[in-house]
């Protein structure tokens, strides 16, 4: 089981809980996340590719 959180350049990123077989597949998913405004990073672990994302919340809308 991969770490749920990891530090990249001193900032916390969270695992999307997916295992991607190829780097290409991972980058395709990353592009989707980035389109939604998330920063995304790819990490290779035991031959699989993992994606970690984050987006800083600056405003909380109360419902």
């Amino acid at each position: 089981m991969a770490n749920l959180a990891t530090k990249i350049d001193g900032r916390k990123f969270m695992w999307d809980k997916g295992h991607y077989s190829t780097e290409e597949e991972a980058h395709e998913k990353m592009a989707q996340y980035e389109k939604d405004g998330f920063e995304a990073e790819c990490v290779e672990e035991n031959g699989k590719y993992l994606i970690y994302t984050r987006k800083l919340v600056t405003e909380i809308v109360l419902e």
Partner: protein
Amino acid sequence: MKGSVLVVGAGPAGMRASSELVAQGFKVILVEEKPTIGGKMAQIDKMFPSNECSTCTILPKMLELTSNPNVTIVSFADVESIEGEPGDFKVKVTKKPRYVDPAKCTACTDCFPVCPVGGIPMEFNFGRGASKAISFYSPFPPRKALINPEKCTYITGGKCGDKEIPPCVEACKPDAIRFDQKPQTVEFNVGAVILATGIREAKPDHLTKYGYSQFSNVLTGLEYERLLSGLGPTSGVVKRDDGQEPKSVCWYVLDNDSPVGFMTAVAQSLGTVERRPDAGITVLHGNHVIQREGYKNFYLEAKESNINFIQTENITSVKETNGNLEISFDKGKIETEMFVVIPPLSPTESARTLAEKIGLELDESGFCGEKSEDSHPIRTSREGIFVCGSALAAKGIDDAIVQACSAASHAASFLASERGSEIVAPPQKDLLAVEPQDEPAILVVICQCGKNIAGLLDMEELVTYTKSLPNVTHVEVTPFGCDGIKIRELLKTKNFNRLVLGACSPKTHEDLFSLHAETGGLNRFLMEVVNIRNHCTWVHSKDKNKATEKAKTLMRMGVRRAALLESLDDIHVPVTPSCLVIGGEPGGISCALRLAEANLDVYLVEEKESLDRVEKNDDAVVKSLIDELSRNERVKIHTGSKVGRMEGFVGNFEAEIVTPDGKENINVGSVVVAAKAKLTADSDEGDFENDLLLQRDENDFFIGMLGILNPLDFNTEGVFRCGSAREEMGTYDAIVDGEAAASRAGGIISQKELVKSPAISFVFDEYCDGCAYCIDPCPSNAITLIEYMTTDGEIKKTVEVNEAVCRGCGVCMATCPKKGIFVRHFKPEYFEEMIKAVVEV
């Protein structure tokens, strides 16, 4: 040039100058004439105007210094000469004989009871209390026995009673007694000198006019402090010479030249009322104008505590009748059971002698004087020799601390080229690898603390009980845990992976015990300190059984927690080597100049178009500082400017400077606020006062950190205040204040990296659902909310902790409803286990 400094005098000023110098990269030789350090601060009970416990405040600082590899403490020694050139002084110091080898003495006290010569009045207590011919000088470090050569019959007559071999020699297992010890001269080469020789109570002949040394129960202020002190001859209970507690006490303040005497009387009278609210308390005093706001408030507090203050021109007579005292003065007459005279303060004899030896000019009172030829209070008539604290003139501890910092900044800039040249790097840690799954093997060391613990607990029962606790593999009893001898020795066997200390308060001793643990090879976070002194033997001193039962319970809790502890690694934070000084008044100017002359980069921001236009700078001395500042390439002056938003943390701040030409972002390692004026730029993006969590009081001055030893610090680490930012002060005081702030700020930015405790908040992401309850209560603004996405497109939330900013206060842990955030080393399960240890008996 040398990269080391001689500091003469180990009172609060000398100790502070030493620690400031080490922080700035200089080695220190600290010479003290008495056998132990701490000066007068170690003898007094509470400090004005904060009413803080003096011992509790200074003891950790003493221990910090005694365990610092870059401070050599030479106690019970006199400086004989200071020759050579500024930057390369040759110093001769004579160590007085103790007749005990301090390197061998373990402070076990086995020699004390066997010494047949007793009843010797204790010098540290001004003659009150009695000791043996071999004893400790005081309860403070360096805790080493010494022999009184005038009282020891073996030294005076060659025989101890009818014995040829003195019993102390036979009792001393480490073979530390040295009757052949002679005065020993040692030499040091240093680049600069700081004199912090302190003060003494002047006891002029006319003190007898007030009954002193004629009648019982007439004392000086310092003598009374020893009665108030918990470590004094009466354990903090004020007693007359007949052993009775007085129902009335009267003070007379003879020293009308400084606020020190009057404030001393205020503090002592408050201390007396705290102990005995029904006591009749009177303070007779001259005409005092109290200027400092803090002093005024302290006086008002005393007035509201039923203390009777009477202004009088003089006392006409003091008579003793039936053991009580009758004081007649120009406005009347009072009867009192004790009479405390606060005499004027004067320089120590050794300070006068030293000044003569090294050719320093003194004023008519024998002080080094607040001003010398160049009108700078901290410099002396000899280049490279600086002076601070009460060696200049009698003053409160808060002012002495400021001057000590200022003197350190002078020495640091004088020796700037040699910074770091003599400093010893801390030894590489060689710690035992301990994994959470490893079976705990707990070493328990129980400190006797002399008689403080051993004299009031059933030690045998405690040891037997502790041995029976789960995972405890060895229990050791040691005379003084703080010397670290047993702790290091046993841990070095590598037979133990946890340490429990049954000792004193972690608040005062944890850092020292941590050092001993790591020197022994155990990560300091695998150590638990159980406070069986303060929590058992002090508060239950009259009930040995209950105190022992409580000690057993606390040890049980400590052992259960220790079994769960995990190793943690320090956090290293890089430092930006520059400082931002906000405000171009005298304090800001002197601060910037002192930092620049110490080869550190400075940004100075002032809202006026030029520094000359600042109203408070209309002074010849300040103008010359401005000239020097404008010539120094290390300083970048931004006039007509303000400071906008600021973010970051100690060692790494990013500030926005709003100049007439636009905005500029700068990176600095520390910040000094040197003006009361609001220098925050109108900006929607932030306000540095808010961003740094700075607060002002009702008079608009900035509120600093609590504590008399922190006059220049804010609660926000790496940010300091000086000059008009902290209180109204004259030009010369503001200059010294600014230099002192330079020392504080310089101590941070002269380091390459800061080491931070890893005992800070940690997010348990499996439990955190991003509810954000922890964000607003965090006093350090260390927590932010982040979102992340999962493969199925769900957006989840969690929080992120800025490790450099978090101080591990635990507020987040208390607010979290999901156990999603906790402080490392203080996990909820540790507390659960401790509570179980209490209830599952």
